[in-house]
């Protein structure tokens, strides 16, 4: 029964990705008339320009280029990097794993942490510790990732403690997880950026749920407080919070760019910045599509959580 709902969401997700691909591809049409010259600069030889034009497929009509690019995406062919000359897939291949590990660790820490702190605050609402935590989360949520990251570097890697590496030192080809200590600061930065939003949303939703008729009814039935929270309150808060978590995790995909740049972390974000600097359009397109795919998948997961915690949706299909 709920396969139908999920099926609809899947179709919708596919539609989103298709539209995103149009958008991402359409952006390249905004390239100045002579794209190759704009990319290579005024001193470029005509041969190089012609080569690049061919590489970019600029000699074909736009719709043809779009479909060959889109077709390539399905088989893992992301085109050719104009900066390195090699296939984009090779360039990104090893970096995907490094970025994924960073995001996954950050997510695994911040989601339960955010939910737990949010519930804790809701249960102590109005008290001093609730207000203090609200203040702290407001301050953290305000600051851009790199500000938090630099503050952490200043405290733990340079002036005050000097116990953790300020940048990633792994030689190329060596997987990042071989030196876990270099993962600490980037992960903590991401956790500090993402958690406050989850906490705030969880707190707000929990307060709403705690004021609801069914929670009052459970208490008037004599249900012990712990069971009231775990059985009657939290499940209702999870559905709406899952949506926010999804948005935050997808946002992580953007935040990871700055954090990787700051810590010289060999992931997709770092590659993206390099590609933007060298105007390596194919790489930027590929990474944009990957990020959008992450967003769609995470949202799909949030929908599943929403459906599982709400029997009305579950049986609606």
């Amino acid at each position, binding site marked *: 029964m709920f396969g139908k709902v999920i099926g609809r969401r899947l179709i919708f997700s596919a539609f989103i990705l298709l*539209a995103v691909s149009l958008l991402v591809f359409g952006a*390249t049409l905004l390239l100045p008339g002579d794209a190759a010259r704009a990319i290579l600069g005024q001193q470029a030889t005509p041969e190089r320009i012609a080569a690049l034009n061919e590489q970019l497929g600029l000699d074909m009509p736009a719709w043809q280029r779009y479909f060959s690019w889109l077709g390539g995406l399905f088989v893992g062919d992301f085109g050719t990097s104009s900066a390195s000359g090699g296939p984009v897939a090779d360039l990104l291949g090893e970096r995907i794993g490094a970025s994924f590990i960073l995001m996954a660790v950050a997510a695994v820490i911040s989601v339960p942490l955010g939910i737990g702190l949010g519930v804790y605050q809701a249960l102590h609402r109005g008290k001093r510790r609730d207000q203090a935590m609200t203040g702290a989360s407001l301050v953290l949520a305000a600051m851009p990732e*790199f500000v938090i990251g630099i503050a952490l570097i200043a405290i733990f890697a*340079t002036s005050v403690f000097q116990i953790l590496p300020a940048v990633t030192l792994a030689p190329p080809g060596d997987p990042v997880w071989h030196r876990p200590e270099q993962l600490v600061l980037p992960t903590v930065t991401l956790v500090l950026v993402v958690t406050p939003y989850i906490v705030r949303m969880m707190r707000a939703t929990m307060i709403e749920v705690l004021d609801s008729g069914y929670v009052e009814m459970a208490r008037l039935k004599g249900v012990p407080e712990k069971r009231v929270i775990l059985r009657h309150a939290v499940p209702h808060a999870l559905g709406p919070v899952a949506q926010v978590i999804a948005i935050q995790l997808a946002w992580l995909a953007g935040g990871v760019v700055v954090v990787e740049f700051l810590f010289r972390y060999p992931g997709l974000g770092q590659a993206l910045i390099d590609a*933007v600097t060298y105007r390596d359009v194919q790489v930027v397109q590929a990474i*944009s599509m990957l990020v959008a795919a992450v967003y769609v998948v995470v949202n799909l997961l949030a929908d599943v959580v929403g459906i599982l915690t709400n029997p009305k949706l579950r049986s609606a299909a």
Partner: protein
Amino acid sequence: MSTDMNNLDDLKSQVAEGAEVPKESQTTYTPFFKRVLAQKQGKIGLVLTLVIVILALCGPLLLPWATGNTATEFVAKPFSPYGLFGSDNLGRDVLSRFIAGGLTLIVYAVIATALGMIVGAIVGMLAAYVGGRFDAVIMRINDVFLAIPQLVFALLAITVLGPQGWVLVTVIGLTHAPRIARVARSATLGVVTEDYIRAAEMYAMPRWKVLFRELLPNITGPLSVEAGLRLTYSIGYIASLSFLGLGLQPPAADWGLMINENRIALSIQPWGVLLPVIAIALLTIGTNLLADSFARATASTSVEA
């Protein structure tokens, strides 16, 4: 057993009050800004924001005073004759570059936010008010834009169009728009079903008047919260892009760029990094606190009983 006659007068007023809310307080409405400033975070937020904004706006005027520096080499010492906070790796005075470096950031952020608010609020309100297929199409387009993080979107635009000021402002403003539109739409949806809107329709009030006279005043609360939040994010994105080297280009003085240029020397000349980092942090904290106090002021409107 009998009625207490002495209390009858009291009682009658009580009866009437029981049915009708007390009348003494002629108006319970407090202006929005007063409700904002009645809160601690409202006050702190406003002070922080004002301090940084004034510093950034007046910075260029103070420059002649601050640039008393003649050093041509890297001077890490604070409080030295080479300027209050030393000089950077190119021998430029850190303090004067700091004072001059906030203006562009703030101006860009404000313009981007204003652009996003105008486009987003109009689109969101229209989607909710017109409804039907128009609403569905607008919201689907919105979903597509939401699938790409704003920063990635900005990077895509910069790749194609180059790291220019108008590109930054436009792309950040326009990527705010779908997010603001969502908020404006749901706020409008909450109001559009109210009977006073239907009453206005019933009296054949022109639609633009319904939008601006009846709807807009009732969603200024959520919109102001959104404006505060978006301003915070705009500052963050624009500073981040400068930090990534994709905003203002050297040799411009800009906080984000300064952090990028000086972070290699963080341990020996921390001021070049710390001053702009602290300024950006205080500014975003200030605007975020303001946004939060807007939200609280909206929630406690007490216009509705």
